């Protein structure tokens, strides 16, 4: 896809960028000229890739290592971006955890951890970033939900509950923050052919291909492209929306 540098100069933070959709989002943002803070947990794990992205796309991709469930670390990360660039234009809450189990098999400790990662940490980052964005009177926040948060699915009650929470928190945040010209939207991907999911798909869900109208898994880039749109000034009147990117999937 030809780049039009539509995010030139925008300061973006993307969480969960060590692989999959997060990695694609960073690459597309960099390709469009954004300055990207790419979050990962493991110190040093994305240094080389970030450097490559910076050179390839003639911009700056900065690794930012922190655990999104660590409130102090989140605050330090936001303050670092503010100190370095004075603003945050875009926050993409992409980091997440996924489990697959039938209702009787739900492990409640694991469920609490998943809510901490997928919901509580997201609220924390929305809170912190919006405090910076409200001063600049602009910003775009993009939260990663899922088609299972919209439709529900057999065998993923816990995960779908967290992604349903993402939808409601997105709608409420959009209502509260629009007075500061901060837009908040969510993306609800269907089945995406990341390395991680492709393996799960081959093992467990191969027969589910018939559920996907378009007949194939999504490419991570196809999710990232919608993130580009929501981060850009092409979507200045879009807020509080849950955008399905699912190739007409139904469960």
């Amino acid at each position, binding site marked *: 896809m030809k780049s039009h540098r539509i995010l030139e100069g925008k300061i973006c933070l993307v969480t969960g960028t060590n692989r999959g959709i997060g990695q694609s989002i960073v690459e597309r943002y960099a390709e469009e000229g954004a300055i990207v803070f790419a979050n990962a947990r493991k110190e040093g794990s994305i240094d080389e890739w970030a450097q490559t992205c910076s050179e390839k796309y003639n911009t700056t991709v900065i690794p930012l290592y922190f655990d999104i469930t660590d409130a102090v670390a989140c605050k330090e990360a936001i*303050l670092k971006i503010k100190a370095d660039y004075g603003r945050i234009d875009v926050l993409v809450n992409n980091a997440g955890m996924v489990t697959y189990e039938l209702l009787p098999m739900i492990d409640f400790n694991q469920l609490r951890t998943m809510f901490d990662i997928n919901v509580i940490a997201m609220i924390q980052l929305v809170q*912190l970033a919006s*405090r910076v964005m409200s001063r600049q009177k602009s910003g775009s926040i993009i939260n990663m939900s899922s088609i299972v948060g919209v439709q529900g699915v057999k065998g993923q009650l816990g995960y779908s509950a967290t992604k349903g929470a993402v939808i409601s928190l997105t709608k409420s945040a959009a209502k509260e923050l629009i007075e500061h010209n901060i837009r908040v939207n969510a993306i609800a991907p269907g089945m995406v052919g990341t390395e991680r999911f492709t393996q799960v798909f081959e093992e467990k869900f191969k027969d589910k291909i018939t559920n996907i109208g378009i007949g194939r898994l999504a490419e991570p880039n196809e999710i990232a492209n919608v993130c580009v749109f929501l981060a850009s000034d092409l979507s200045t009147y879009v807020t509080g929306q849950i955008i399905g990117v699912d190739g007409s999937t139904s469960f």
Partner: protein
Amino acid sequence: MSVLENYNTVFSSVFNVDVSVLSDDFSSTSVDNWDSITQLSLVTAMEDAFDIMLDPEDILNFKSYAVGKEIVAKYGVTF
């Protein structure tokens, strides 16, 4: 401007009062228009004035002129 003058100016501006009325008794219980919206405005203005970022529990507890000083001091602002 001294730190105290800066602190007082923020209060004076947010509550639209003269600096002379500010005292340790100036609080959410004694001031009519001290609601959650005003409290957020106060905190935001305080953060901008001192270039700090308060934690959520400090935002919640910022309910008086006196307590506010203690909170701001936690972030390295010395009166």
